[in-house]
């Protein structure tokens, strides 16, 4: 292997370059990124950066050690097509990069709603998104956040701390019921009302009101919520459209096995764009988690280089900081799992809860209980399939 192209210059792409070098690959590495920026850390975009407490420099992911990676950065270039059989990546500039190996790390983009083109309506995914939103929040509220997922909740929390009037609208009856289940979702969502954010649940958004610039959000029940700024936080879609017809199998993400291998030799996929078999869950998962974007490239690099990979059954992990409270979650919850408080008191917004299936602990949620979380996540049950293997 003499040349590898990494498509995607965010955490997963940078991690892939680091992993290739740490696994003794000394050939050429090209990293293609559609943003003009060097890799930066996205989690602070909804928190410290949005609050003005972190600078662009603070977000930089590269360290002085990374100078030795000897990466050929192709920033501001968008990959528009892949010819898998030739491992050829075509760029919007017309150039084509042909290499021995390709790492697909194109991430995901924010899902939008019809009418999102109106001024004052934002999504939050990139540094440029965050700069634009930060400037608008400085003008004051009211802010309406559509979607009470983690991004929406963090933006609401940051805006409240800036003193804005904030309303969060969630179509589901209980926020975060998907990842956390209805009981814990309700407990976590109470952070909004604890902190003076209005929470409207169980009602969809019909559209935006305003000519040129948004004035209000109209709900499905005809209510109108006045808005100077709107943030649409309704999830992300993987950036895989450019792979249509490429020969790489895509089904709501790039399909890979547990070793990040696609069906095409020499092509691997990692991070938010990858739908990979996950041994812990016993099924394919597309994880939009920071930690996954660090861990998968290690495995993918080994796969590309034909090395043994330590494909552990690491439980998926994510965290969220909202209203001065730290949530941490590890494992994989399925509908029907039982959940019980292991320690602490939900009323105090400080507790840990364990999710069980057939008596085995399969996931843990901690709210301001980092130390206990460290122990409980290590006690998560190894899936049965792993025990047998």
């Amino acid at each position, binding site marked *: 292997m003499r040349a590898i192209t990494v498509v995607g210059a965010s955490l997963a792409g940078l991690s892939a370059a680091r992993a290739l070098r740490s696994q003794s690959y000394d050939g050429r590495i090209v990293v293609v990124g559609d943003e003009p920026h060097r890799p930066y850390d996205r989690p602070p975009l909804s928190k410290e950066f949005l609050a003005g407490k972190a600078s662009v420099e603070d977000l930089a992911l590269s*360290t002085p050690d990374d100078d030795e990676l000897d990466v050929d950065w192709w920033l501001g270039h968008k990959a528009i097509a892949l010819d898998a059989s030739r491992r050829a990546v075509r760029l919007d500039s017309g150039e084509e990069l042909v290499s021995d190996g390709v790492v697909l790390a194109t991430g995901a983009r924010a899902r939008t709603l019809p009418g999102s083109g109106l001024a004052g309506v934002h999504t939050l995914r990139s540094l440029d998104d965050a700069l634009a939103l930060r400037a608008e929040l400085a003008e004051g509220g009211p802010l309406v956040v559509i979607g009470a997922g983690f991004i929406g909740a963090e933006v609401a929390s940051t805006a409240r701390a800036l003193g804005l009037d904030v309303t969060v609208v969630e179509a589901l009856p209980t926020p975060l019921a998907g990842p956390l289940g209805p009981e814990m979702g309700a407990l976590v969502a109470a952070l909004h009302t604890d902190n003076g954010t209005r929470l409207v649940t169980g009602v969809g958004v019909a559209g935006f009101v305003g000519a040129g610039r948004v004035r209000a959000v109209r709900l499905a029940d005809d209510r109108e919520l006045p808005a100077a700024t709107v943030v649409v936080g309704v999830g992300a879609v993987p950036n895989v459209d450019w792979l249509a017809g490429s020969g790489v199998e895509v089904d709501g993400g790039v399909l890979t096995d547990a070793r990040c291998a696609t069906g095409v030799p020499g092509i691997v996929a990692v991070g938010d764009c990858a739908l990979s078999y996950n041994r812990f869950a016993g099924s394919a998962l597309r994880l939009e988690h920071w930690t996954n974007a*660090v861990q998968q490239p290690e495995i993918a690099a080994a796969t590309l280089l034909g090395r043994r990979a330590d494909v552990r059954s690491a439980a998926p992990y994510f965290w969220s900081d909202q209203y001065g409270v730290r949530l*941490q979650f590890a494992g994989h919850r399925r509908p029907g799992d039982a959940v019980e408080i292991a320690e602490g008191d939900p009323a105090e917004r400080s507790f840990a809860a364990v999710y069980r299936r057939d008596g085995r602990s399969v996931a843990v949620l901690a709210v301001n209980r*980092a*130390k206990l979380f*460290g122990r409980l996540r290590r006690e998560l049950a190894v899936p049965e399939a792993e025990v047998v293997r």
Partner: protein
Amino acid sequence: MIPVCAVPDLPVGEAVRVEAEVPIAVFNADGVLYAIDDTCTHQDASLADGWLEGCLVECPLHATCFDLRTGRPTGPPAKRPVRTHEVVVENDYVYVRVSVPADSPVVGHGEVA
């Protein structure tokens, strides 16, 4: 010196956080006491809440391990070391002598008798 706690209040495998100019975490790693700055150099997380294994503490947020002897991270995401501080045990009580702010190579620790 900053008083931390009585020696029996810091059993093996445990950590305590004390408020100084910046918070400091004191660990009992298999009978040896170490003190480092409590806040991870990557993002705001308390290392006293971290998982302790040998002379390494794993940040509870992003799993960077810091070497308690040197303060150095073993890998990303943290880039910079935490300061280490000297631990002093006097009359069965644990104290910390805060090191100078520079990237000093202080490797202070005290033995529990």
